[in-house]
């Protein structure tokens, strides 16, 4: 029983130490189906871990072993070092929020009473549970006037929000979510993803989430665990690591062929050198022999390009990107769609902010790649690129979008991220070869 009190204290001070550890966990159902086999997994505290994989690969089984809805047939799972079987089921579950795809709301209870479920089970006073529930209602972005409604009177998205509120009601240490957003339409899904990410940042919860949608996994996860049928881990790491260096064809196929390009979606554009550019009010005012200028309207918003070679014709602007908020991907789009090879940056007001050259944009892509490689803890990744000319050309982009196979690339160890494997590298890295250094120099040279 001492373990029970230990667990209770963890829940109270919420010190962020709660870690779920799977050791050689297997689950074979009575009918002989092995849903999970020999799973080793660490779910770190205060992070969003996303389990992703094709249907039937054992994600739900894995998740439900955490709150003991399903018991493993072999191996052990512990929470902060305490083996789960030592914690009483109801005690354990009341400390773990749980959200499922269908919502699973109690149809006979009001929204408010649904949210009050766990506080009530924990014996909170009625008044305290109710005020907490109302607080949560606002937190998940629902109007208080919905408190007295029944689930059937809510939209799917609202129901999922109530589900999230109910899961958070007693301030659980851990939040388990099984495909929480797959039943809602894409717009609502994006909202809910934002909500949960926001809550995670605000409340610092440990979240374990399941999805079969790789994009959702990449958006939500600090750590992404890609599973394959039989409950084996195909690859595990940060979204960047997985996008940049899929371990095998299964992962590569799963994350998609355009992952090199897609990885840019996660890199911010802010920090790129935005150069000043001459702006004119009319294409006709560009003198012969001068460099291209941006034509702007009375508010300073870009309309198109003026180039002496084209006389007074207004050239199309191409895509623009928001200097502060957009991603590298948007910059590359803008640069490639510009008639003069310059990506136009705009301020949040829509006014012209400046331009980024295609060369700079592509160079940033290259640096991004190096950074990701560096985060893999290897300097070797930089080596094949060392001989490259400092200037970036479209070939760099091709390489970026090309197949994953890079024989010199370090292989990432599967399943044991905290334990560095001794044979990770094919070549020992030269001492002191800091991968970020050369990249920086190259950029200076290029600009």
């Amino acid at each position, binding site marked *: 029983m001492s373990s029970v009190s230990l667990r209770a204290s963890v829940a109270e001070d919420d010190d962020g130490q709660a870690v779920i550890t799977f050791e050689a966990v297997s689950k074979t159902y009575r009918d002989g189906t092995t849903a999970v086999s020999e799973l080793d997994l660490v779910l770190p505290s205060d992070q969003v871990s996303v389990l992703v994989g094709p249907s039937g690969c054992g994600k739900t089984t894995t998740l*439900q072993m955490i*709150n003991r*809805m399903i018991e493993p047939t072999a191996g052990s799972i512990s929470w902060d070092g305490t083996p789960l079987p030592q914690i009483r*089921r*109801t*005690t*354990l*579950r*009341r400390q773990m929020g*749980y959200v*499922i795809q*269908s*919502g*699973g*709301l*109690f*149809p*006979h209870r*009001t929204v*408010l*009473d649904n949210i009050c*479920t*766990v506080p009530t*089970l924990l014996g909170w006073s*009625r*008044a305290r549970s*109710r*005020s907490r529930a*109302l607080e949560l209602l606002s937190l998940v972005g629902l*109007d*208080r*006037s919905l*408190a*007295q409604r*029944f689930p059937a009177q809510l939209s799917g998205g609202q129901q999922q929000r109530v589900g999230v509120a*109910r*899961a958070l009601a007693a301030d659980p240490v851990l939040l*388990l979510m099984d495909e929480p957003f797959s039943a809602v339409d894409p717009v609502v899904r994006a909202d809910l993803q934002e909500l949960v990410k926001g809550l995670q940042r605000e409340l610092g919860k440990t979240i374990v989430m399941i999805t079969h949608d790789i994009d959702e996994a990449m958006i939500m996860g600090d750590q992404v665990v890609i599973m394959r049928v039989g409950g084996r881990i195909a690859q595990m790491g940060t979204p960047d690591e997985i996008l940049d260096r899929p371990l095998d064809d299964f992962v590569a196929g799963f994350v998609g062929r355009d992952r090199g390009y897609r990885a840019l979606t996660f890199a911010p554009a802010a920090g790129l050198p935005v150069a000043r550019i001459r702006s004119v009010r009319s294409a006709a005012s560009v003198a012969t022999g001068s460099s291209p200028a941006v034509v702007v309207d009375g508010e300073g918003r870009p309309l198109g390009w003026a180039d002496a070679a084209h006389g007074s014709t207004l050239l199309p602007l191409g895509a623009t990107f928001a200097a502060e908020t957009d991603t590298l991907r948007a910059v590359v789009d803008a640069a490639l769609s510009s008639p003069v090879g310059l990506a136009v940056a705009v301020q949040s007001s829509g006014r012209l902010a400046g331009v980024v050259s295609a060369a700079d944009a592509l160079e940033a892509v290259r640096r991004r790649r190096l950074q990701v490689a560096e985060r893999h803890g290897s300097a070797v990744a930089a080596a094949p690129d060392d001989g490259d000319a400092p200037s970036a050309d479209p070939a760099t982009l091709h390489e970026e979008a090309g197949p994953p196979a890079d024989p010199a690339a370090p292989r990432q160890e599967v399943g044991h991220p905290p334990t560095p494997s001794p044979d990770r590298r094919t070549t020992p890295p030269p001492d002191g070869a800091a991968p970020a250094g050369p990249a920086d120099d190259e950029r200076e040279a290029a600009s």
Partner: protein
Amino acid sequence: MNVFSFLLDAENWAGPSGIWVRIGQHVFYSVASVLLAALVAIPLGVLIGHTRRGDAVVSGLSNAARAVPTLGLLVLVVTLMGSGYLPVVLALAVLAVPPVLVNTAAGFRGADPGAVHAGRALGMTGWQLVRQVELPLAVPLVVSGLRSASLQVVATATVAALAAAGGLGRFVVDGQNLGPGGYPQMFAGAVLVALLAVLVDLGLGGLGWALQRRTGRISREDRDHLATLQPGTA
């Protein structure tokens, strides 16, 4: 001959073998046997539905019980126990068990699986799950089981007369013995049984409706509490 003559004669209503007493006996048998059946069938149905085990028990029991002819059963029970109230109540209860059992088990087993799963995963004990989730969701089916059991029992309680235990069946039996002159009496028995059945059906239908509404409404106390918390929207 007026078939209503028996019913319209005030004398037939009074006295120890009058219509009022017969109605009372009939109602008593019906209520007692349905209650007895509910006492056995509801807990059993809850157990079977909640654990999702013992489907074979349900279908086996109910099929067997349906196959038993009530009259034969009554004769058997009376032979074993002698005539009187108890054999009648027991025989009728056996008749009432299957619908209650089947409906209760179905109600508990069929309770919104997402809600039941979530309740368990949020840390409800088995009993809390039964009380707070499955029961409220199963209530409409349980009540409808009781309703069809009651209808059957009210109609069948006429056989009590055969065990010399009174009830509205008495009028049918006595009227039959009187030959053609007994028609008004037989008619009275039949009409009263039908009327009673309609009343019971309406009553239990109303109960089911009320219970469903109750589970779908928030208490006044909660509404007041909410009103104090949100002065703007109350």
